[in-house]
C-alpha cells in the first residue's frame, strides 16, 4: 500500500481509489474490527447517538448490536478502569471521548493503572485498550472543550500515543491500535474531520511508532503532527513558490516517536521547524527540538523553530481564537527566519 504523500484533498484522486471522509474512515475501521474480532467492543458517551460521535461510530450499534457498541454513564474514571478490567479479561475495548479535555478525569486509571499493569507485573499481563479522544477545536469551544493534550499525554512509558493526519492513517492506526497489546491513546484533531482521503476498503494497519515523509524537500524539515501536517503541506506549497523546498515529516506517533526519521530528514536539510497544535512549553515541539539538539546538532545550520499555540488557555472569542491557533502562515514565517531568501 503506497503511503499518501500529499495533502489528500488537494490531490487528484485516481479513479481506482475510493475517497472516504475522515470520520467515516474511523467508522470503517471500527466496523471491520467488530466484524473480525468478537473481543472488540466500542463504548463512550454518545457512541450510539444518532450522530455517532461525529460519524465515527455511526450505526455501529445497529450493525453489531447494543452489547458491542454502547453508551456509558458519565463516569470517565471508572469506565476507563472497566475497559482495563475487560481487557485483562480477554476483551479489546475501544473507549471514545468526544472531547480530549475529559481525559483528565481518567488519568488515574489510564496512567497509574493501564500504563503500569504490564510493567509492574513484569509482563505477566497486558492491557490492550484503545482510548480515542477528539480535540474539539471548533466554534468557540473555549478553555475546557478544545485543549490539545498530546504534550501531557506523551510522557508516560507504557502508554502509546498516536495522532493521525489523514483518513488513510485514521483507519490504519485505529486498526493497529486495536491489534496492539498495549494501551494506545489516539488523539484526533477535529479539524481533520472535514477532509476526505483515499482509503482502501480492505483491512490494513499503519505501524505505530513510524512517521512518514509527506513531501520530500531539501531546504528545511517541517515536522508536524495531526492537523498541523496539513498546515505544513500548505505552507510547503507556498514556500515552493518563493523557491524554498520544504520536507514535511508527519510524526504520526508521539510514543514511540520516530526519532530516526526526524534525524534523517534533518541530516538532509539542516534546518528544522516543529509544528504542533498543543502548547509550546513541555510539549511535542519541545521534545522534537530536544532530540534535534541532543542527537542532531551537527546537522543544524540554524536554530530550531517551534510553531505551536501560545501558552494561554484556549480562548472562546473568535478574534482571540484567530490569534491563538497556529497555522500555515506561522509556519512560513518560522521557515523564513531560518532559511536564507532564494529569490
Amino acid at each position, binding site marked *: 500500500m503506497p503511503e499518501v504523500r500529499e495533502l489528500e484533498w488537494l490531490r487528484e484522486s485516481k479513479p481506482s481509489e475510493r475517497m472516504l471522509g475522515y470520520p467515516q474512515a474511523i467508522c470503517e475501521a471500527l466496523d471491520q474490527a467488530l466484524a473480525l474480532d468478537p473481543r472488540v467492543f466500542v463504548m463512550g458517551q454518545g457512541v450510539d447517538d444518532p450522530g455517532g460521535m461525529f460519524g465515527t461510530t455511526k450505526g455501529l450499534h445497529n450493525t453489531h448490536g447494543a452489547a458491542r457498541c454502547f453508551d456509558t454513564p458519565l*463516569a470517565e474514571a471508572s469506565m476507563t*478502569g472497566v475497559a482495563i478490567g*475487560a481487557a485483562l479479561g480477554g476483551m479489546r475495548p475501544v473507549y471514545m471521548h468526544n472531547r480530549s479535555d475529559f481525559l483528565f478525569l481518567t488519568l488515574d486509571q489510564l496512567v*497509574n493503572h493501564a500504563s503500569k499493569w504490564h*510493567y509492574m507485573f513484569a509482563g*505477566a499481563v497486558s492491557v490492550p485498550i484503545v482510548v480515542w479522544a477528539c480535540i474539539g477545536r471548533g466554534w468557540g469551544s473555549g478553555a475546557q472543550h478544545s485543549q490539545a493534550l498530546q504534550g501531557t499525554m506523551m510522557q508516560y512509558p507504557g502508554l502509546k500515543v498516536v495522532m493521525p493526519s489523514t483518513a488513510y492513517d485514521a483507519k490504519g492506526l485505529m486498526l493497529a491500535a486495536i491489534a496492539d497489546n498495549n494501551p494506545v491513546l489516539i488523539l484526533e484533531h477535529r479539524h481533520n474531520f472535514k477532509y476526505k482521503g483515499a482509503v482502501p476498503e480492505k483491512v490494513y494497519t499503519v505501524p505505530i511508532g513510524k512517521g512518514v515523509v509527506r513531501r520530500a524537500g531539501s531546504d528545511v524539515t517541517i515536522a508536524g503532527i495531526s492537523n498541523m501536517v496539513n498546515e505544513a503541506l500548505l505552507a510547503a506549497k507556498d514556500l515552493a513558490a518563493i523557491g524554498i523546498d520544504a520536507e514535511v515529516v508527519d510524526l504520526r506517533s508521539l510514543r514511540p516517536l520516530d526519532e530516526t526519521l526526524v534525524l534523517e530528514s534533518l541530516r538532509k536539510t539542516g534546518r528544522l521547524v516543529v509544528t504542533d497544535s498543543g502548547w509550546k512549553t513541555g510539549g511535542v515541539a519541545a521534545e522534537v527540538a530536544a532530540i534535534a539538539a541532543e542527537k542532531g546538532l551537527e546537522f543544524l545550520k540554524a536554530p530550531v523553530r517551534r510553531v505551536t499555540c501560545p501558552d494561554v488557555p484556549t480562548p472562546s472569542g473568535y478574534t482571540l481564537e484567530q490569534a491563538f491557533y497556529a497555522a500555515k502562515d506561522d509556519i512560513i514565517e518560522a521557515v523564513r527566519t531560518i532559511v536564507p531568501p532564494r529569490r
Partner: protein
Amino acid sequence: MNIPRETLLSLYHDMLRTRRVEESIESLYHEDQMKTPIHLYIGQEAIAAGVCAHLRDDDPIFTTYRSHGQYLSKGGDLNSMIAELHCKETGCSKGRGGSMHLIDLSAGHYGSSAIVGGCLPIATGMAFAKKAQGSDAVTVTFFGDGATEEGIFYESVNYAMLKKLPVVFVLENNEWAVCSHVSTRKIGENLFHGADPEHLYTAKVDGNAVLDVYEEAGRAFAHARSGKGPAFLECMTYRIRGHAGSGSDADLGYRSPEDIEVWAKRCPIRSFRAWLLREEVETPIELERMDAQIETEIENAFAFATASPLPKGEDLLLHIYGE
C-alpha cells in the same frame, strides 16, 4: 451451617499461614533485605480466608497494597511472593512490583494497586468481560474503608448494579487509614447498605469471625454467580499493626493502646482454634503439626528468596510494552 471438616481446617490453615508469613516478614524486616514498603494483614486474616474459600481458580481477584493475605488465601505461590518482597528476579513480579504489586495468574490473582480504590473499576470491568463471555466466574475486589471515600467507588458499584455484573466488593473496614480514624472521614453507614436489594446484595459481618465471613461471603457469591448481579460485603475488623512497616505503633499516640489490646484479644485465629478444639474437629497435636509444616514452608520460601538473583540493572528497560 454445615461446613465440611476439610473446609474448616483449610480456613484455619489459610489464616494461620498468612499470620505466620506476616510474623516472619515482620521479624526479618529490620535486616533490610526486603527493601519495599510492607503493609501487614495481621488481625484481618479471617476475611481473606473466609472469602477466598468460595473461589475457584478462574474467579479473578484484585487487591490492594495490603494484599499478602488475599494473595495467599487465593492460592498465590508463597515462594514467588517472598521473593518479590526481596525484589528478586524470581518474584511474582520479577522485582518490578515489590510488596504492593503481587500477581499470580494461575491462582486468578490479577494484581494489586497501590492507589486507594484503583482496582474497584478494574474488577468491575473483569466481571463485565466474564459476563460477556458467558462464564459464571465471579470477580472479587478487596479494599479498605478509605477506598469507599473515593468517588470511583460510587462509580464502580453503580456500573456493576446497572449492568448486573458478577462482582463482589469486599470492604475490609479496619477503622484506620494511615493515622486517620474512619469517624473523622465519613458519617454514618456506607450508603450502599441502603441500596435496593434487587440491585445490590449487601451484608455486614464481623470480620474477625471466620465462619461468619465464610457464611456471608457464601451468600454473596451464590447471588453473584447465579446472575443476580453484584454484592457488597462489609467486614468489620481492626488494623493491629501500624499502617506500614513492622511492629506495634501503639506508642505513636494517635490511637489508644487499649483499643489495640481489645482487638488483639479478638484474634480470629486464636478464637477459631479454640472452637475447632472444642468442637473436636481436630486434635491439638494435629494443629501443632500444621503449624510446624507452615513454619518449614515459610523457612524454605525465605531461603528460596535469599538464594535468588536480583534483577540486573541492564534489564531496566524490559517489560514496558507487551508484544
